[in-house]
Protein backbone atom coordinates (compact mmCIF):
# COMPACT_ATOMS: atom_id res chain seq x y z
CA UNK A 1 0.00 0.00 0.00
CA UNK A 2 2.87 2.35 0.78
CA UNK A 3 4.27 1.57 -2.63
CA UNK A 4 0.85 2.22 -4.11
CA UNK A 5 0.60 5.59 -2.35
CA UNK A 6 4.10 6.44 -3.53
CA UNK A 7 3.22 5.43 -7.06
CA UNK A 8 0.03 7.46 -7.05
CA UNK A 9 1.67 10.48 -5.48
CA UNK A 10 4.14 10.54 -8.31
CA UNK A 11 1.40 10.96 -10.88
CA UNK A 12 -0.25 13.81 -9.04
CA UNK A 13 2.05 16.29 -10.71
CA UNK A 14 2.96 14.52 -13.88
CA UNK A 15 5.18 17.17 -15.38
CA UNK A 16 7.19 17.48 -12.20
CA UNK A 17 7.77 13.76 -11.96
CA UNK A 18 8.62 13.66 -15.61
CA UNK A 19 11.33 16.24 -15.03
CA UNK A 20 12.91 14.07 -12.36
CA UNK A 21 12.64 10.95 -14.51
CA UNK A 22 14.22 12.74 -17.44
CA UNK A 23 16.96 14.22 -15.25
CA UNK A 24 17.80 10.76 -13.97
CA UNK A 25 17.71 9.37 -17.51
CA UNK A 26 19.86 12.22 -18.73
CA UNK A 27 22.34 11.76 -15.88
CA UNK A 28 22.63 8.05 -16.59
CA UNK A 29 22.97 8.69 -20.28
CA UNK A 30 25.56 11.43 -19.98
CA UNK A 31 27.48 9.39 -17.43
CA UNK A 32 27.49 6.27 -19.53
CA UNK A 33 28.09 8.05 -22.79
CA UNK A 34 31.06 9.99 -21.53
CA UNK A 35 32.32 6.91 -19.75
CA UNK A 36 32.06 5.07 -23.05
CA UNK A 37 33.73 7.94 -24.85
CA UNK A 38 36.56 7.96 -22.38
CA UNK A 39 36.94 4.21 -22.46
CA UNK A 40 36.87 4.29 -26.24
CA UNK A 41 39.67 6.85 -26.17
CA UNK A 42 41.62 4.72 -23.77
CA UNK A 43 41.20 1.55 -25.77
CA UNK A 44 42.18 3.44 -28.88
CA UNK A 45 45.33 4.81 -27.33
CA UNK A 46 46.27 1.45 -25.97
CA UNK A 47 45.78 0.00 -29.40
CA UNK A 48 47.47 2.70 -31.40
CA UNK A 49 50.32 3.59 -29.20
CA UNK A 50 50.80 0.87 -26.67
CA UNK A 51 49.76 -2.46 -28.16
CA UNK A 52 51.10 -1.77 -31.61
CA UNK A 53 54.16 0.27 -30.94
CA UNK A 54 55.42 0.83 -27.45
CA UNK A 55 54.35 -2.56 -26.13
CA UNK A 56 53.08 -3.14 -22.64
CA UNK A 57 56.62 -3.10 -21.33
CA UNK A 58 60.02 -2.40 -22.83
CA UNK A 59 63.45 -3.67 -21.97
CA UNK A 60 66.47 -1.40 -22.25
CA UNK A 61 70.00 -0.97 -21.05
CA UNK A 62 69.61 0.57 -17.58
CA UNK A 63 71.24 3.82 -18.74
CA UNK A 64 69.61 4.02 -22.16
CA UNK A 65 66.78 6.40 -21.29
CA UNK A 66 69.00 8.49 -19.07
CA UNK A 67 71.51 8.87 -21.89
CA UNK A 68 68.76 10.08 -24.14
CA UNK A 69 68.54 7.04 -26.39
CA UNK A 70 72.23 7.03 -27.18
CA UNK A 71 73.31 4.47 -29.76
CA UNK A 72 76.17 3.33 -27.54
CA UNK A 73 73.93 1.85 -24.84
CA UNK A 74 72.52 -1.32 -26.38
CA UNK A 75 71.11 -4.25 -24.42
CA UNK A 76 73.85 -6.57 -23.26
CA UNK A 77 73.58 -10.12 -24.47
CA UNK A 78 70.32 -9.68 -26.37
CA UNK A 79 70.29 -13.35 -27.35
CA UNK A 80 70.00 -14.35 -23.72
CA UNK A 81 67.23 -11.83 -23.13
CA UNK A 82 65.37 -13.10 -26.17
CA UNK A 83 65.74 -16.61 -24.86
CA UNK A 84 64.23 -15.70 -21.50
CA UNK A 85 61.39 -13.83 -23.17
CA UNK A 86 60.55 -16.62 -25.56
CA UNK A 87 60.36 -19.07 -22.69
CA UNK A 88 57.87 -16.90 -20.82
CA UNK A 89 54.30 -18.05 -21.38
CA UNK A 90 52.70 -14.80 -20.21
CA UNK A 91 54.22 -12.99 -23.19
CA UNK A 92 52.25 -12.66 -26.38
CA UNK A 93 54.60 -10.83 -28.70
CA UNK A 94 58.23 -9.75 -28.71
CA UNK A 95 59.75 -7.14 -30.97
CA UNK A 96 63.44 -6.41 -31.14
CA UNK A 97 64.56 -2.97 -32.27
CA UNK A 98 67.52 -0.75 -32.82
CA UNK A 99 66.60 2.65 -31.44
CA UNK A 100 68.72 5.72 -31.09
CA UNK A 101 68.51 9.46 -31.18
CA UNK A 102 70.18 11.14 -34.11
CA UNK A 103 70.31 14.19 -36.35
CA UNK A 104 68.97 13.88 -39.89
CA UNK A 105 70.79 16.19 -42.27
CA UNK A 106 70.32 17.31 -45.85
CA UNK A 107 72.62 19.76 -47.54
CA UNK A 108 70.52 22.64 -46.23
CA UNK A 109 68.50 21.48 -43.21
CA UNK A 110 68.79 19.31 -40.16
CA UNK A 111 66.44 18.02 -37.52
CA UNK A 112 66.65 15.82 -34.42
CA UNK A 113 65.07 12.40 -34.94
CA UNK A 114 64.68 9.02 -33.35
CA UNK A 115 65.87 6.24 -35.63
CA UNK A 116 63.88 3.05 -35.19
CA UNK A 117 65.29 -0.04 -36.78
CA UNK A 118 62.64 -2.67 -37.10
CA UNK A 119 62.55 -6.19 -38.38
CA UNK A 120 59.74 -5.64 -40.84
CA UNK A 121 58.72 -9.24 -41.13
CA UNK A 122 58.41 -9.80 -37.39
CA UNK A 123 57.32 -6.32 -36.45
CA UNK A 124 54.21 -6.60 -38.57
CA UNK A 125 52.38 -8.61 -35.93
CA UNK A 126 52.59 -5.79 -33.50
CA UNK A 127 53.24 -2.70 -35.44
CA UNK A 128 51.66 -1.91 -38.74
CA UNK A 129 53.73 0.97 -40.01
CA UNK A 130 53.22 -0.37 -43.52
CA UNK A 131 49.54 0.64 -43.35
CA UNK A 132 50.58 4.24 -42.73
CA UNK A 133 52.77 4.60 -45.80
CA UNK A 134 51.41 7.35 -48.03
CA UNK A 135 54.03 7.34 -50.78
CA UNK A 136 56.76 4.96 -51.84
CA UNK A 137 57.53 1.75 -50.02
CA UNK A 138 60.15 0.16 -47.83
CA UNK A 139 62.26 -2.25 -49.90
CA UNK A 140 65.68 -3.50 -48.86
CA UNK A 141 68.57 -1.77 -50.57
CA UNK A 142 72.12 -3.05 -50.41
CA UNK A 143 73.97 0.18 -51.12
CA UNK A 144 72.19 2.75 -48.94
CA UNK A 145 69.84 1.75 -46.08
CA UNK A 146 66.19 2.44 -46.86
CA UNK A 147 64.51 5.11 -44.76
CA UNK A 148 60.85 5.73 -44.15
CA UNK A 149 60.17 9.22 -42.81
CA UNK A 150 57.11 11.18 -41.79
CA UNK A 151 55.55 13.45 -44.37
CA UNK A 152 55.72 16.31 -41.91
CA UNK A 153 59.45 15.91 -41.57
CA UNK A 154 59.91 15.48 -45.32
CA UNK A 155 58.11 18.75 -45.96
CA UNK A 156 60.13 20.52 -43.35
CA UNK A 157 63.43 19.27 -44.73
CA UNK A 158 62.36 19.56 -48.35
CA UNK A 159 63.18 15.89 -48.91
CA UNK A 160 61.78 14.02 -51.91
CA UNK A 161 61.54 10.28 -52.52
CA UNK A 162 64.94 8.90 -53.52
CA UNK A 163 66.92 11.67 -51.83
CA UNK A 164 69.94 10.76 -49.74
CA UNK A 165 70.22 12.06 -46.19
CA UNK A 166 72.91 11.83 -43.52
CA UNK A 167 72.05 10.28 -40.18
CA UNK A 168 74.33 10.99 -37.23
CA UNK A 169 73.83 9.23 -33.93
CA UNK A 170 75.70 8.48 -30.73
CA UNK A 171 76.54 12.12 -30.38
CA UNK A 172 77.83 11.98 -26.80
CA UNK A 173 79.56 8.64 -26.59
CA UNK A 174 81.12 7.98 -29.97
CA UNK A 175 79.59 9.24 -33.14
CA UNK A 176 77.99 6.79 -35.55
CA UNK A 177 76.86 8.08 -38.90
CA UNK A 178 75.70 6.74 -42.24
CA UNK A 179 73.92 7.82 -45.39
CA UNK A 180 70.43 6.49 -46.06
CA UNK A 181 68.00 6.92 -48.90
CA UNK A 182 64.44 8.06 -48.36
CA UNK A 183 62.19 5.49 -49.99
CA UNK A 184 58.83 6.19 -48.43
CA UNK A 185 56.71 8.67 -46.51
CA UNK A 186 54.25 7.82 -43.79
CA UNK A 187 51.59 9.69 -41.92
CA UNK A 188 50.19 8.65 -38.53
CA UNK A 189 47.53 10.42 -36.46
CA UNK A 190 50.29 11.80 -34.29
CA UNK A 191 52.05 14.75 -35.95
CA UNK A 192 54.69 15.10 -33.28
CA UNK A 193 55.68 11.49 -33.76
CA UNK A 194 55.71 11.85 -37.52
CA UNK A 195 58.23 14.60 -37.22
CA UNK A 196 60.42 12.66 -34.85
CA UNK A 197 60.55 9.03 -35.86
CA UNK A 198 62.23 7.62 -38.93
CA UNK A 199 62.11 3.94 -39.71
CA UNK A 200 64.84 1.73 -41.07
CA UNK A 201 65.39 -2.01 -41.49
CA UNK A 202 67.15 -3.39 -38.44
CA UNK A 203 69.26 -5.71 -40.57
CA UNK A 204 70.31 -2.80 -42.81
CA UNK A 205 71.57 -0.74 -39.95
CA UNK A 206 73.27 -3.64 -38.20
CA UNK A 207 75.12 -4.38 -41.42
CA UNK A 208 75.92 -0.76 -42.14
CA UNK A 209 77.29 0.05 -38.71
CA UNK A 210 78.83 -3.33 -38.15
CA UNK A 211 77.27 -3.97 -34.70
CA UNK A 212 74.52 -6.47 -34.08
CA UNK A 213 72.98 -4.06 -31.55
CA UNK A 214 69.52 -4.28 -30.04
CA UNK A 215 68.39 -1.33 -27.95
CA UNK A 216 64.89 -2.31 -27.21
CA UNK A 217 62.61 -5.27 -26.73
CA UNK A 218 58.95 -4.28 -26.87
CA UNK A 219 56.68 -6.85 -25.31
CA UNK A 220 52.96 -7.36 -25.03
CA UNK A 221 51.43 -9.75 -22.55
CA UNK A 222 48.41 -11.93 -23.08
CA UNK A 223 46.69 -10.22 -20.18
CA UNK A 224 46.99 -6.49 -20.06
CA UNK A 225 45.42 -6.33 -16.61
CA UNK A 226 48.31 -8.20 -15.00
CA UNK A 227 50.85 -5.81 -16.49
CA UNK A 228 52.31 -4.67 -13.16
CA UNK A 229 52.90 -8.09 -11.65
CA UNK A 230 54.17 -9.61 -14.89
CA UNK A 231 56.67 -6.84 -15.43
CA UNK A 232 57.91 -7.18 -11.86
CA UNK A 233 58.42 -10.91 -12.44
CA UNK A 234 60.23 -10.19 -15.66
CA UNK A 235 62.50 -7.73 -13.95
CA UNK A 236 63.53 -10.47 -11.53
CA UNK A 237 64.36 -12.77 -14.38
CA UNK A 238 66.43 -10.10 -16.12
CA UNK A 239 68.29 -8.32 -13.32
CA UNK A 240 70.83 -6.67 -15.64
CA UNK A 241 68.28 -5.00 -17.85
CA UNK A 242 65.77 -2.34 -17.02
CA UNK A 243 62.06 -3.06 -17.54
CA UNK A 244 59.82 -0.08 -18.18
CA UNK A 245 56.05 -0.12 -18.37
CA UNK A 246 54.51 1.83 -21.21
CA UNK A 247 53.47 4.57 -18.80
CA UNK A 248 57.14 5.17 -18.01
CA UNK A 249 58.07 5.26 -21.68
CA UNK A 250 55.31 7.60 -22.80
CA UNK A 251 54.27 9.42 -19.61
CA UNK A 252 52.43 12.03 -21.66
CA UNK A 253 49.98 9.35 -22.85
CA UNK A 254 49.47 7.99 -19.37
CA UNK A 255 49.08 11.52 -18.01
CA UNK A 256 46.64 12.28 -20.78
CA UNK A 257 44.53 9.32 -19.70
CA UNK A 258 44.76 10.34 -16.05
CA UNK A 259 43.83 13.85 -17.06
CA UNK A 260 40.70 12.66 -18.86
CA UNK A 261 39.90 10.62 -15.75
CA UNK A 262 40.02 13.81 -13.72
CA UNK A 263 38.01 15.77 -16.23
CA UNK A 264 35.48 12.93 -16.20
CA UNK A 265 35.35 13.03 -12.44
CA UNK A 266 34.72 16.77 -12.32
CA UNK A 267 32.22 16.45 -15.11
CA UNK A 268 30.31 13.67 -13.39
CA UNK A 269 30.45 15.56 -10.12
CA UNK A 270 28.74 18.51 -11.80
CA UNK A 271 26.13 16.26 -13.42
CA UNK A 272 25.35 14.50 -10.14
CA UNK A 273 25.20 17.77 -8.24
CA UNK A 274 22.72 19.14 -10.74
CA UNK A 275 20.66 15.97 -10.50
CA UNK A 276 20.79 16.04 -6.72
CA UNK A 277 19.60 19.64 -6.60
CA UNK A 278 16.79 18.79 -8.99
CA UNK A 279 15.63 15.90 -6.86
CA UNK A 280 15.93 17.79 -3.59
CA UNK A 281 13.89 20.61 -5.05
CA UNK A 282 11.20 18.39 -6.52
CA UNK A 283 10.80 16.15 -3.51
CA UNK A 284 10.80 19.12 -1.20
CA UNK A 285 8.03 20.72 -3.19
CA UNK A 286 6.11 17.50 -3.15
CA UNK A 287 6.53 17.22 0.63
CA UNK A 288 5.54 20.83 1.28
CA UNK A 289 2.49 20.53 -0.92
CA UNK A 290 1.40 17.56 1.12
CA UNK A 291 2.05 19.12 4.51
CA UNK A 292 -1.55 18.76 5.57
CA UNK A 293 -1.81 15.22 4.31
CA UNK A 294 1.39 14.18 6.04
CA UNK A 295 0.06 15.78 9.22
CA UNK A 296 -3.09 13.67 8.97
CA UNK A 297 -1.09 10.53 8.31
CA UNK A 298 0.99 11.21 11.41
CA UNK A 299 -2.12 12.01 13.45
CA UNK A 300 -3.83 8.76 12.58
CA UNK A 301 -0.74 6.81 13.46
CA UNK A 302 1.67 6.60 10.54
CA UNK A 303 5.12 6.39 12.10
CA UNK A 304 8.24 8.22 11.07
CA UNK A 305 9.78 5.14 9.58
CA UNK A 306 6.76 4.57 7.36
CA UNK A 307 6.74 8.21 6.24
CA UNK A 308 10.43 7.91 5.44
CA UNK A 309 9.77 4.77 3.44
CA UNK A 310 6.94 6.40 1.55
CA UNK A 311 9.03 9.36 0.39
CA UNK A 312 12.03 7.19 -0.46
CA UNK A 313 9.81 4.89 -2.46
CA UNK A 314 8.67 7.86 -4.50
CA UNK A 315 12.25 8.77 -5.37
CA UNK A 316 13.03 5.16 -5.98
CA UNK A 317 10.20 4.77 -8.45
CA UNK A 318 11.25 7.90 -10.32
CA UNK A 319 14.82 6.65 -10.42
CA UNK A 320 13.74 3.17 -11.45
CA UNK A 321 11.87 4.62 -14.41
CA UNK A 322 14.65 7.04 -15.34
CA UNK A 323 17.54 4.56 -15.27
CA UNK A 324 16.28 2.21 -18.02
CA UNK A 325 15.46 5.20 -20.21
CA UNK A 326 19.01 6.44 -19.71
CA UNK A 327 20.41 3.01 -20.51
CA UNK A 328 18.25 2.83 -23.60
CA UNK A 329 19.52 6.22 -24.76
CA UNK A 330 23.06 5.07 -24.12
CA UNK A 331 22.64 1.89 -26.13
CA UNK A 332 21.16 3.91 -28.95
CA UNK A 333 23.85 6.57 -29.04
CA UNK A 334 26.85 4.42 -28.20
CA UNK A 335 25.56 1.88 -30.69
CA UNK A 336 25.50 4.53 -33.36
CA UNK A 337 28.73 6.36 -32.61
CA UNK A 338 30.49 3.15 -31.65
CA UNK A 339 30.11 2.18 -35.30
CA UNK A 340 30.52 5.51 -36.99
CA UNK A 341 33.03 7.02 -34.62
CA UNK A 342 33.26 10.58 -33.37
CA UNK A 343 35.67 12.73 -35.32
CA UNK A 344 37.45 14.95 -32.85
CA UNK A 345 39.64 16.66 -35.41
CA UNK A 346 36.68 18.87 -36.30
CA UNK A 347 36.25 19.97 -32.71
CA UNK A 348 39.86 20.45 -31.88
CA UNK A 349 42.68 20.33 -34.35
CA UNK A 350 45.25 20.55 -31.58
CA UNK A 351 44.21 17.17 -30.28
CA UNK A 352 45.72 15.54 -33.33
CA UNK A 353 49.07 17.12 -32.63
CA UNK A 354 49.36 15.57 -29.23
CA UNK A 355 49.18 12.01 -30.29
CA UNK A 356 45.51 11.47 -29.80
CA UNK A 357 43.73 9.62 -32.51
CA UNK A 358 41.07 11.90 -33.84
CA UNK A 359 38.46 9.20 -34.36
CA UNK A 360 36.96 7.97 -31.13
CA UNK A 361 34.73 4.92 -30.97
CA UNK A 362 32.81 4.95 -27.70
CA UNK A 363 32.60 1.59 -25.96
CA UNK A 364 30.59 0.83 -22.82
CA UNK A 365 32.36 -1.43 -20.39
CA UNK A 366 30.01 -3.74 -18.51
CA UNK A 367 31.17 -2.31 -15.22
CA UNK A 368 30.14 1.21 -16.31
CA UNK A 369 26.49 0.30 -16.19
CA UNK A 370 26.97 -0.96 -12.71
CA UNK A 371 28.97 2.07 -11.58
CA UNK A 372 26.71 4.70 -13.06
CA UNK A 373 23.55 3.02 -11.81
CA UNK A 374 24.98 2.76 -8.31
CA UNK A 375 25.96 6.42 -8.50
CA UNK A 376 22.53 7.53 -9.67
CA UNK A 377 20.80 5.52 -6.97
CA UNK A 378 23.15 6.95 -4.37
CA UNK A 379 22.60 10.48 -5.60
CA UNK A 380 18.84 10.15 -5.60
CA UNK A 381 18.77 8.56 -2.18
CA UNK A 382 21.08 11.15 -0.68
CA UNK A 383 19.02 13.94 -2.17
CA UNK A 384 15.87 12.49 -0.68
CA UNK A 385 17.26 12.68 2.83
CA UNK A 386 16.68 16.40 3.12
CA UNK A 387 13.02 16.35 2.03
CA UNK A 388 12.45 13.39 4.37
CA UNK A 389 13.93 15.27 7.31
CA UNK A 390 11.69 18.15 6.40
CA UNK A 391 8.65 15.87 6.43
CA UNK A 392 9.59 14.27 9.73
CA UNK A 393 9.91 17.66 11.37
CA UNK A 394 6.24 18.38 10.74
CA UNK A 395 4.03 18.60 13.81
CA UNK A 396 0.69 16.94 13.13
CA UNK A 397 -1.54 19.71 14.54
CA UNK A 398 0.30 22.51 12.83
CA UNK A 399 0.46 20.59 9.58
CA UNK A 400 -3.25 19.78 9.63
CA UNK A 401 -4.23 23.35 10.35
CA UNK A 402 -2.18 24.67 7.50
CA UNK A 403 -4.32 26.49 4.93
Amino acid at each position, binding site marked *: *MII*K*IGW*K*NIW*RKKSRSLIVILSVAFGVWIGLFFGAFQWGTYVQKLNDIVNREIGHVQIHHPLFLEEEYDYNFPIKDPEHVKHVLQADSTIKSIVERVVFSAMIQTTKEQSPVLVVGVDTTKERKMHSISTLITQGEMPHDKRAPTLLIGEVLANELGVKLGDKVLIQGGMLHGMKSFVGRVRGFYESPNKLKDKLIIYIHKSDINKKLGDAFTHEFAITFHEYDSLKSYSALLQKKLPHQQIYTWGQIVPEVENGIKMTDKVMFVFMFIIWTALALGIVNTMLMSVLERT*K*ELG*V*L*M*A*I*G*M*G*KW*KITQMIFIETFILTAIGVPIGIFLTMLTVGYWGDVGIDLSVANAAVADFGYSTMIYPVVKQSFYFQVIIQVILVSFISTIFPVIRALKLE*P*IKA*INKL
Partner: protein
Amino acid sequence: MNVVETKNIEKVFRDADLEVCAVNDVSLTIQEGEFTAVVGPSGSGKTTLLNMIGGLDVPTSGSVKVASQELTELSKNELINFRLFNIGFVFQSYNLIPVLTAFENVEFVMLLQKISQKERKQRVEELLEAVGIPEKANVRPAQLSGGQQQRVAVARALAPKPAFIIADEPTANLDSKSTKILLDIMQKLNEKEGITFLFSTHDQRVIDRAKRVITLTDGKITSDQNMKE
Protein backbone atom coordinates in the same frame (compact mmCIF):
# COMPACT_ATOMS: atom_id res chain seq x y z
CA MET B 1 -14.68 2.03 32.58
CA ASN B 2 -12.97 5.37 32.08
CA VAL B 3 -11.81 5.83 28.53
CA VAL B 4 -10.42 9.28 29.20
CA GLU B 5 -9.35 10.81 32.46
CA THR B 6 -7.74 14.23 32.67
CA LYS B 7 -6.52 15.81 35.88
CA ASN B 8 -5.93 19.54 36.15
CA ILE B 9 -4.68 19.92 32.63
CA GLU B 10 -3.50 23.27 31.51
CA LYS B 11 -2.21 24.50 28.19
CA VAL B 12 -0.39 27.78 27.92
CA PHE B 13 0.65 29.21 24.54
CA ARG B 14 3.46 31.70 24.58
CA ASP B 15 3.87 34.09 21.68
CA ALA B 16 6.69 36.54 22.38
CA ASP B 17 5.52 38.17 25.63
CA LEU B 18 1.89 37.24 25.10
CA GLU B 19 0.67 34.32 27.18
CA VAL B 20 -2.62 32.62 26.40
CA CYS B 21 -4.00 30.03 28.74
CA ALA B 22 -6.09 28.08 26.24
CA VAL B 23 -7.09 25.32 28.64
CA ASN B 24 -7.14 26.10 32.33
CA ASP B 25 -7.27 23.43 35.01
CA VAL B 26 -9.59 20.98 33.31
CA SER B 27 -10.40 17.69 35.00
CA LEU B 28 -12.89 15.39 33.37
CA THR B 29 -13.58 11.74 32.74
CA ILE B 30 -15.24 10.14 29.76
CA GLN B 31 -16.68 6.71 30.14
CA GLU B 32 -17.10 3.97 27.60
CA GLY B 33 -20.20 4.45 25.50
CA GLU B 34 -20.51 8.20 25.99
CA PHE B 35 -21.75 10.52 23.23
CA THR B 36 -20.35 13.78 24.45
CA ALA B 37 -20.19 17.26 22.96
CA VAL B 38 -17.67 19.90 23.97
CA VAL B 39 -19.17 23.31 23.32
CA GLY B 40 -18.24 26.91 23.90
CA PRO B 41 -17.58 30.13 22.08
CA SER B 42 -14.79 30.49 19.56
CA GLY B 43 -11.41 30.56 21.27
CA SER B 44 -12.71 28.87 24.41
CA GLY B 45 -10.20 26.04 24.07
CA LYS B 46 -12.25 23.19 22.57
CA THR B 47 -9.72 22.24 19.91
CA THR B 48 -6.84 22.56 22.32
CA LEU B 49 -8.55 20.28 24.83
CA LEU B 50 -9.44 17.66 22.22
CA ASN B 51 -5.89 17.72 20.82
CA MET B 52 -4.47 16.98 24.26
CA ILE B 53 -6.94 14.16 24.86
CA GLY B 54 -6.15 12.80 21.39
CA GLY B 55 -2.43 12.75 22.07
CA LEU B 56 -1.72 15.30 19.35
CA ASP B 57 -0.68 17.99 21.79
CA VAL B 58 1.01 17.88 25.17
CA PRO B 59 -0.42 19.73 28.17
CA THR B 60 1.74 22.34 29.90
CA SER B 61 0.82 20.67 33.17
CA GLY B 62 -1.58 18.05 34.46
CA SER B 63 -2.21 14.48 33.44
CA VAL B 64 -4.10 12.84 30.57
CA LYS B 65 -4.95 9.16 30.78
CA VAL B 66 -6.44 7.38 27.79
CA ALA B 67 -7.39 3.71 28.22
CA SER B 68 -5.41 3.77 31.49
CA GLN B 69 -2.25 4.95 29.71
CA GLU B 70 -0.69 8.20 30.92
CA LEU B 71 -0.04 10.11 27.69
CA THR B 72 2.39 12.63 29.15
CA GLU B 73 4.80 9.78 29.83
CA LEU B 74 5.01 8.71 26.19
CA SER B 75 7.67 9.80 23.72
CA LYS B 76 6.67 11.27 20.38
CA ASN B 77 7.11 7.98 18.59
CA GLU B 78 5.27 6.06 21.28
CA LEU B 79 2.44 8.58 21.00
CA ILE B 80 2.13 7.97 17.25
CA ASN B 81 1.84 4.28 17.88
CA PHE B 82 -0.57 4.83 20.73
CA ARG B 83 -2.83 6.92 18.53
CA LEU B 84 -2.72 4.27 15.86
CA PHE B 85 -4.19 1.63 18.14
CA ASN B 86 -6.33 3.63 20.53
CA ILE B 87 -7.74 6.83 19.09
CA GLY B 88 -9.89 7.45 16.02
CA PHE B 89 -9.82 10.93 14.48
CA VAL B 90 -12.45 12.74 12.46
CA PHE B 91 -11.35 16.16 11.25
CA GLN B 92 -13.38 19.21 10.34
CA SER B 93 -12.13 19.20 6.76
CA TYR B 94 -12.36 15.39 6.25
CA ASN B 95 -8.65 15.08 5.38
CA LEU B 96 -8.86 11.88 3.41
CA ILE B 97 -5.81 10.85 1.39
CA PRO B 98 -6.69 12.13 -2.08
CA VAL B 99 -4.80 9.49 -4.04
CA LEU B 100 -6.55 6.60 -2.31
CA THR B 101 -10.08 5.33 -2.90
CA ALA B 102 -12.66 5.33 -0.11
CA PHE B 103 -11.90 1.66 0.46
CA GLU B 104 -8.14 2.24 0.64
CA ASN B 105 -8.55 5.24 2.92
CA VAL B 106 -10.37 3.07 5.44
CA GLU B 107 -8.01 0.16 4.92
CA PHE B 108 -4.83 2.18 5.34
CA VAL B 109 -4.78 2.43 9.15
CA MET B 110 -5.34 -1.30 9.47
CA LEU B 111 -2.43 -1.81 7.16
CA LEU B 112 -0.27 0.22 9.52
CA GLN B 113 -1.55 -2.07 12.27
CA LYS B 114 -0.42 -5.04 10.19
CA ILE B 115 -3.83 -6.64 10.04
CA SER B 116 -4.21 -9.42 7.48
CA GLN B 117 -5.58 -8.70 4.04
CA LYS B 118 -8.62 -10.90 4.56
CA GLU B 119 -9.59 -9.28 7.82
CA ARG B 120 -9.02 -5.82 6.39
CA LYS B 121 -11.25 -6.42 3.42
CA GLN B 122 -14.04 -7.75 5.59
CA ARG B 123 -13.84 -4.88 8.04
CA VAL B 124 -13.67 -2.17 5.39
CA GLU B 125 -16.78 -3.57 3.75
CA GLU B 126 -18.59 -3.69 7.09
CA LEU B 127 -17.61 -0.12 7.90
CA LEU B 128 -18.56 1.34 4.54
CA GLU B 129 -21.86 -0.46 4.94
CA ALA B 130 -22.24 1.02 8.43
CA VAL B 131 -21.70 4.57 7.16
CA GLY B 132 -24.08 3.89 4.29
CA ILE B 133 -21.82 4.22 1.24
CA PRO B 134 -20.75 0.69 0.27
CA GLU B 135 -21.21 1.59 -3.39
CA LYS B 136 -18.55 4.30 -3.16
CA ALA B 137 -15.76 1.90 -2.19
CA ASN B 138 -13.71 2.45 -5.31
CA VAL B 139 -14.27 6.17 -5.63
CA ARG B 140 -11.66 8.76 -4.78
CA PRO B 141 -12.41 11.53 -2.25
CA ALA B 142 -12.54 14.22 -4.95
CA GLN B 143 -15.58 12.52 -6.45
CA LEU B 144 -17.47 12.39 -3.14
CA SER B 145 -19.61 15.09 -1.57
CA GLY B 146 -18.44 16.64 1.71
CA GLY B 147 -20.95 14.57 3.66
CA GLN B 148 -19.85 11.37 1.95
CA GLN B 149 -16.20 12.20 2.60
CA GLN B 150 -16.93 12.75 6.26
CA ARG B 151 -18.68 9.39 6.41
CA VAL B 152 -15.60 7.75 4.93
CA ALA B 153 -13.59 9.63 7.56
CA VAL B 154 -15.79 8.17 10.32
CA ALA B 155 -15.28 4.69 8.84
CA ARG B 156 -11.53 5.36 8.75
CA ALA B 157 -11.57 6.48 12.39
CA LEU B 158 -13.40 3.29 13.38
CA ALA B 159 -11.20 0.94 11.36
CA PRO B 160 -8.45 0.43 13.94
CA LYS B 161 -11.05 -0.39 16.65
CA PRO B 162 -9.99 2.56 18.80
CA ALA B 163 -11.01 3.11 22.43
CA PHE B 164 -12.95 6.20 21.33
CA ILE B 165 -13.39 8.66 18.51
CA ILE B 166 -12.43 12.32 18.69
CA ALA B 167 -14.11 14.66 16.26
CA ASP B 168 -13.30 18.38 16.26
CA GLU B 169 -16.27 20.11 14.67
CA PRO B 170 -17.08 17.22 12.33
CA THR B 171 -20.15 18.92 10.89
CA ALA B 172 -18.81 22.46 10.53
CA ASN B 173 -18.34 22.09 6.78
CA LEU B 174 -21.55 20.16 6.13
CA ASP B 175 -25.01 21.30 5.08
CA SER B 176 -27.91 20.47 7.37
CA LYS B 177 -28.94 17.38 5.44
CA SER B 178 -25.45 15.87 5.50
CA THR B 179 -25.13 16.89 9.15
CA LYS B 180 -28.26 14.96 9.99
CA ILE B 181 -27.13 11.87 8.08
CA LEU B 182 -23.72 11.93 9.75
CA LEU B 183 -25.22 12.37 13.23
CA ASP B 184 -27.66 9.52 12.58
CA ILE B 185 -24.74 7.29 11.69
CA MET B 186 -22.68 8.38 14.71
CA GLN B 187 -25.63 7.93 17.02
CA LYS B 188 -26.42 4.51 15.65
CA LEU B 189 -22.80 3.41 16.04
CA ASN B 190 -22.89 4.71 19.59
CA GLU B 191 -26.14 3.01 20.52
CA LYS B 192 -25.72 -0.27 18.64
CA GLU B 193 -21.96 -0.83 18.88
CA GLY B 194 -21.25 1.13 22.02
CA ILE B 195 -18.65 3.31 20.30
CA THR B 196 -17.52 6.26 22.40
CA PHE B 197 -17.66 9.67 20.71
CA LEU B 198 -16.17 12.92 21.90
CA PHE B 199 -16.84 15.83 19.60
CA SER B 200 -16.82 19.61 19.63
CA THR B 201 -19.38 21.76 17.93
CA HIS B 202 -21.00 25.16 17.59
CA ASP B 203 -24.14 23.79 16.03
CA GLN B 204 -27.24 23.72 18.27
CA ARG B 205 -28.76 20.83 16.26
CA VAL B 206 -25.66 18.79 17.03
CA ILE B 207 -25.67 19.80 20.68
CA ASP B 208 -29.28 18.66 20.91
CA ARG B 209 -28.28 15.12 19.95
CA ALA B 210 -25.50 14.79 22.55
CA LYS B 211 -26.03 12.72 25.70
CA ARG B 212 -23.61 14.87 27.64
CA VAL B 213 -22.60 18.46 27.01
CA ILE B 214 -19.45 19.98 28.44
CA THR B 215 -19.24 23.75 28.13
CA LEU B 216 -15.91 25.53 28.06
CA THR B 217 -15.47 29.23 28.68
CA ASP B 218 -12.00 30.76 28.50
CA GLY B 219 -10.43 27.35 28.91
CA LYS B 220 -12.44 26.35 31.99
CA ILE B 221 -15.35 23.94 32.28
CA THR B 222 -18.32 26.07 33.20
CA SER B 223 -20.99 23.44 32.89
CA ASP B 224 -21.21 19.68 32.48
CA GLN B 225 -24.72 18.30 31.87
CA ASN B 226 -26.18 14.90 31.22
CA MET B 227 -29.01 15.59 28.78
CA LYS B 228 -31.16 12.56 28.15
CA GLU B 229 -32.55 11.69 31.53
